[in-house]
């Protein structure tokens, strides 16, 4: 065998890192600032916070899953009670930029300012500093992660280069963060988000067939389970939160929890485990 799985707690077959991106209306504003004057477009994102999130929280409770919520600073400022509730219900809150911005467009100082503002907004909303980071849509640089580390974050989930968490050097001094990689195929938003103007997707591809999406999620989970890897899922309640998709997600969570030995872990739990069980 050439392919190697990850080290896992005794008796576990795979890790499942269930993450939620609360991009809200800031996803649409990141596509076009003019959306600030487009209430219909904004309502797509707002729906995620007002309708999608409560459904998602109930679903996670039903399956006893603790998730990791990546929250943009602006979301924390706009919906502090929602963010507080996420924490009160036992989930982890991490930083998802300030206004769902593309960090690769900024110089070091501007990135630093934005991450600081986001950390402050999250702490104000829920009384806790984020310990994890995920750069929003767009690209990022090593220095982006170095800033996140300096602002107190110990793990980050941004890249696509592995299917196991690994320690990543984020500066020349060799300081590290745990990188928990992900996959596009296990993210609901690219399959389901749709709007004419600002356009998403740019080429206006049809909304994906729900059963086909479930089939992909199951295939990736099966592959990760079989090879003892870390299945990272990204959900955004503005897309997962519709009644039909909530049912779809429920079916998927039933499928996952129907497997023995799935280790559902938050970012901080993965970090704590990986730091104690380092493999070089």
């Amino acid at each position, binding site marked *: *065998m*050439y*392919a*190697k799985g990850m080290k896992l707690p005794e008796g576990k077959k795979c890790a499942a890192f269930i993450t939620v991106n609360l991009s809200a209306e800031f996803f649409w504003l990141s596509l076009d600032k003019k959306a600030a004057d487009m209430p219909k477009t904004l309502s797509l994102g707002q729906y995620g916070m007002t309708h999608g999130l409560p459904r998602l929280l109930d679903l996670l409770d039903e399956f006893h899953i603790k998730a990791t919520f990546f929250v943009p600073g602006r979301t924390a400022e706009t919906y502090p009670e929602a963010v507080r509730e996420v924490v009160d219900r036992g989930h982890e809150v991490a930083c998802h930029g300030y206004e769902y911005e*593309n960090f*690769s*467009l900024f110089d070091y100082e501007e990135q630093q300012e934005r991450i600081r503002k986001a950390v402050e907004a999250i702490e104000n909303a829920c009384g806790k500093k984020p310990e994890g980071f995920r*750069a929003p*849509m*767009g*690209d*990022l*640089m*090593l*220095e982006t992660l170095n800033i996140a580390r300096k602002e107190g974050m110990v793990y980050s989930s*941004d*890249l*696509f*280069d*592995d*299917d196991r968490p690994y320690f990543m050097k984020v500066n020349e001094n060799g300081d590290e963060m745990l990188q928990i*990689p992900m*996959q*596009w*195929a296990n993210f609901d938003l*690219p*399959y389901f988000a749709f709007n004419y103007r600002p356009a*998403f*997707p*740019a*080429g*206006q*591809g*049809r*909304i*994906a*067939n729900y059963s*086909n*999406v479930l*089939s*992909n999620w199951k*295939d*990736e*989970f*099966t*592959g*990760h389970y*079989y*090879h003892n*890897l870390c299945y990272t899922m990204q959900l955004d309640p503005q897309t997962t939160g519709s009644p039909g998709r909530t049912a779809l997600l429920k079916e998927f969570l039933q499928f996952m929890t129907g497997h023995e030995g799935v280790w559902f872990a938050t970012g901080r739990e993965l970090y704590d485990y990986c730091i104690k069980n380092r493999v070089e």
Partner: protein
Amino acid sequence: MEKVKWPEGKKSAVMFSFDLDGDVIWRNMSSDEPNAEKLIRARSIGQYGPNRCVDMILDLMDKYGVKATFYVPGFVAEHNPDVIRRIADAGHEIGNHGYTHERFVEKTVEEQREIIEKTQRIIKEITGKEPAGFRTPSGDWHVRTPYILSEMGFSYSSSMRGDDKPYYTVLDGEESDLVEIPSKWELDDYVAQAYSVYPAEPSGLDRISCYRNVQDNDIREFRGYYDMGLCISFLMHPQISGAPGRNLVLEEVLKEVTSHKDVWVATGSEIAEYWKKAYPRKNRTNDENVERGEV
């Protein structure tokens, strides 16, 4: 149309090929973005190939007893020599795929020659063997590219789209010794499944395809080639088909192909060499016939 004869009376031929592009396509796509040299996310999509997916594919190839052909840009080989060695040591063929996945149609003849030679040198240094096959990277090759390949002594290319079986590349109006083993866009897993929001892949940002729908297409094409007795070249990419879930699709395709005992699964070089013996080109000189011991 006359049926193609395959070795040992086999009914059709199959080539599993993998373009190990690593991060070069993603680097090229982001090259005009701000801070291009410092971006890490887009590249990470491609780095997944050599980092993780090659091993997943090597396991599957072993499980089904299949030897595949990996076309590698020199840049990717330079950065992942251990991966290239592992592929070669497992008995698979390594082919030349440009240096940084260049569009040959945009290069001068001299530049093209340098790119191809550089990659030949890099791969030879790692595996001890110069590739005999070439696959043109993204987009078209230059009208002179096949002449360069022929002069450099390449046995074959797998670059074109216009046939379902091998043929001799015509140079200056005559068949040359450069065999072409064409593939198709519909057999390309990158076309079917590559995805990224930023930079956008596909450029219009369509949806992520359903794996099992892709599997259905692949198996239908295979059955079509099988029934007609042709040569199918699956054109895959480790970063796509080596992911844990998409790997299941590749496994189903392998299962289907290897369930037919009368299918010849071969590498690019094996197919090209067979073709030259079974179907000698029309205008072979007498010297060439002597060289081949056929006179």
